[in-house]
């Protein structure tokens, strides 16, 4: 257990930096909207989503109705439906932790679970669970602390959230160096750049993901045809 915890902790340090400070920004905002640290704590435990929780504060302040809130939240969180595809078989092996692993599948945890090579002498399932639990606890700590003492931070932490950008860049570099097949990464990059230029940062994620899935499907058909031609 100790070896797994140590490994998981080191792997999640960048997420810790990002989540604590981003969580604090949320907690402070929530506090200013009239919701104290107890609200922040439970929101972080139950909702556990960056952009989703910022939307939540906005909805509470505008007194958005239940149905509208549901539709808005679903549309912001839609990108998640693509993440599970990678772990359908693997999460089944997680036993009792199966529903929790799904609940904890944020952008960052998804990237870490996929990008981290877990050494063979460690318990694979336990290490994966620890990565998810640690990330979640950083978020809970950040949100709660932000509500409690966010206004006390006086030193300038502008830019510390770049830790998560750097984490994604590192995982991208690793997969590029480790794979001969660069087509999926190029599809994603092209779709991402195209749609962010066309639609801007708020709206580009979903079309970029959908087009990438489309691109992968075309690519699969091409691979199959190639295989058939080679075999016969």
């Amino acid at each position, binding site marked *: 257990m100790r070896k797994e915890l140590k490994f998981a902790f080191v792997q999640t340090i960048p997420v810790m930096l990002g989540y604590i400070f981003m969580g604090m920004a949320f907690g402070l905002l929530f506090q200013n909207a009239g919701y104290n640290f107890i609200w922040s704590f439970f929101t972080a435990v139950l909702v556990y989503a960056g952009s989703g929780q910022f939307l939540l504060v906005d909805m509470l302040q505008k007194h958005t109705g239940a149905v509208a809130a549901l539709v808005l939240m679903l549309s912001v969180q839609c990108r998640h439906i*693509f993440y599970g*595809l990678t*772990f359908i078989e693997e999460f089944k092996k997680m036993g009792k932790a199966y529903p929790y692993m799904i609940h904890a599948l944020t952008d960052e945890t998804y990237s870490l679970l996929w990008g981290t090579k877990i050494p063979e002498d460690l318990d694979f399932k336990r290490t994966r669970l620890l990565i998810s639990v640690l990330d979640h606890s950083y978020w809970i700590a950040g949100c709660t602390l932000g509500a409690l003492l966010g206004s006390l931070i006086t030193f300038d932490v502008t830019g510390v959230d770049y830790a998560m950008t750097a984490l994604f860049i590192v995982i991208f570099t690793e997969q590029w160096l480790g794979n001969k097949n660069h087509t999926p*990464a190029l599809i994603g990059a092209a779709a991402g750049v195209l749609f962010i230029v066309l639609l801007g*940062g708020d709206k*580009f994620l979903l079309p970029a993901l959908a087009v990438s899935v489309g691109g992968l499907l075309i690519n699969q058909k091409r691979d199959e045809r190639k295989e058939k031609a080679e075999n016969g």
Partner: protein
Amino acid sequence: MVDFKYSVMIILISAIATFFTRAFPFLLFGRKEPSKTVLYVGKYLPSAVIAILVVYCLLGSGFAVNTVLPKLIAGVIVVVLHVWKRNNLLSIGLGTVIYMALVQLVFV
């Protein structure tokens, strides 16, 4: 004043909606053996998703030179450092410190 019942309701709706989006592929494909196509997409999609997330982090807050340039400079340093040393924490730590220095001191 905080409207307690209303707030709890909206928070629970947010939690359920979020969990539903995360559980969706598992509900759709989790029961039986997933098809070859689903497995193929599941296997190769992460490379595309990571690329999209990188694009989002670099360009998601607008295209102004003062916004994008420090992100790109730090990003190039992260890549070079990582190809050279292959040390996650070094690449991420140094990249973040350089970015913080850039936005706090240079691109103010």
